[in-house]
């Protein structure tokens, strides 16, 4: 054990600079963490995802879909089988997206990866399992039961929930709730005009 400590302890002459550097590293990471709202990666609100404008197309399309009121991003994109899996996946994903974003190597058109698409599929079934597996309710989906096996739900439900075309330029005026940027619901002049009386 002592050996080990001695091994990683830097030579005395380096001591000061290493401490400063490590401190700076931690500081920088913390800073990045704060301004990139990495902590918000742990939350379930869709606002989290639109911290990156890159997610704006997905936000905008989801916000105009049938799922808006009952299923947010993480309901579909993060595993819900158990607690640990959920946060592990979130962390891993968050790191991936963040580095891609910072490194500016994100593609113009994002495509879902195999692993995350499996996650999504499981989530579709999590919510709609009752409707699509209950033989009694098959009347809604009956005809398609056999064709459905082994396919992703959105091979048929292509518009659920993002639609087909989601390149960044396709929704460039989309209203996404970027916190610093929320306008005044009641403009200043009107507030004043009302309060005057």
């Amino acid at each position, binding site marked *: 054990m002592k050996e080990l400590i001695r091994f990683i302890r830097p030579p005395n002459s380096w001591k000061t600079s290493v401490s400063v550097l490590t401190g700076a590293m931690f500081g920088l990471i913390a800073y990045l963490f704060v301004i990139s709202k990495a902590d918000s990666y742990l939350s379930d609100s869709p606002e989290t995802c639109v911290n990156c404008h890159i997610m704006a197309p997905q936000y905008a399309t989801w916000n105009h879909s049938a799922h808006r009121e009952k299923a947010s991003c993480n309901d579909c994109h993060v595993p819900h089988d158990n607690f640990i899996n959920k946060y592990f996946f979130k962390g891993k994903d968050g790191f991936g997206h963040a580095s891609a974003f910072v490194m500016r190597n994100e593609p113009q058109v994002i495509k879902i990866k195999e692993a995350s698409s499996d996650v999504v599929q499981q989530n579709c079934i999590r919510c709609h399992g009752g409707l699509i597996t209950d033989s009694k309710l098959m009347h809604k989906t009956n005809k398609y039961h056999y064709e459905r096996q082994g396919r992703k739900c959105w091979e048929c439900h292509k*518009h659920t929930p993002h639609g087909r075309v989601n390149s960044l330029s396709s929704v460039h005026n989309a209203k996404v709730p970027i916190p610093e940027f929320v306008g005044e619901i009641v403009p200043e002049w*009107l507030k004043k*005009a009302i309060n005057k*009386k």
Partner: protein
Amino acid sequence: IMERKAEAVFAYTPQVEHSEMEPRNEVWGKNFPREFETYYDTKDISFKSKYNGGAMIDMLEVDPRLVVLWAGYGFSKDYNQGRGHYYALTDMRNTLRTGAPIDGKASPMPNTCWTCKSPDVPRVMKEKGVAEFYSGKWQEKGNEIVNIIGCADCHDSKTMELKISRPALVEAFERMGKDITKATHQEMRSLVCAQCHVEYYFDKKKVPGAAYLTFPWDNGLTCEDAEKYYDDMNFKDWTHKLSKAPMLKTQHPGYEVYLTGVHAKRGVSCADCHMPYKNEGGMKFSDHKIQSPLNNVANSCQVCHREETKSLIEDVYERQDRIIHNRDRLEELLVRAHVEAKKAWELKATEEEMKDILILIRHSQWRWDYAAASHGGSFHSPVEIGRIIATGIDKAQEARIKLARLFAAKGFNEEVAYPEVKNKDL
């Protein structure tokens, strides 16, 4: 990251900078050509559904009984089924019910009428003050009001976020103890409409000389809540020419009725159905051609309902049919009640004898109008509208039972003939 964030905030680079109060849609339109163009498509009035659509329909022509119901009031001179936003100013200037205010001639109508017809309104209000805006007649501020309803009515000029641009809605919320600035984005997608698509009246007492635009929501937003509000303050819009009943006019309680329906309860907003996403040349944006969703089922209803277009339209018509049948019957009963009440006066009925009867007529017609004026209401909340009409029928008939007894007391025992209403002249 800092840099990218700034980029995210300004998701668009404005072509044109303009002020907060810019009333000209063309100017905003430079930055947002798609929204602008679709908005101006509200000019298209070709679509007609079973009961609604874009066309201007002369309702007094289609249904002359309305002339009886509104006898003695402006609406009996002219009333059209509304059309697109593009026409709001034109239609208001042209309507005969206001006493021909054309060409700067003196008009009997207050400036308050302009409130829901143009983005020049917030501009003038800011310049002159709210109460001052509500004062005076048309010819006085009419020349300031030139742009059709538009961007500045609903949007913040810097962020393009939705905003409330007029006082009445904010004040109504305040009086109910609610804070409208706490509204969610999704609620705002209906609240911008609730600035105009609501029942209202002019409060003449609040600020002397002003016809202060007010929403009767202090007791709540239902039909009965508003009725109680008006009753408690002894308010009437006019005295009926035939029956002498102290009448109320219901104007388009679109938002209030919508709130009682299942779509509102499930978080579906006006914009979801009337301004759905549109996909054009790979671009997605909110279709600003605000119109009947039945002209655009694929983008509106079918986002949520995987049903055939035909079947969804059928759903709407089926609900409307079930409602309109009884609404029509109520209309007939009200015509009868008015002419019977007139007969009673001729038979020298006293004020005392007529009092209850006239209140029943007032309450019954309030309900009929609530159902009739809430265009779309028979779909927005069919169970509630059905309920309201049933209570309206009950009250109209109750009035007529009392009238029959009154006739007997006056020694008259015949059926009063149903008036032949052929055209707009009574």
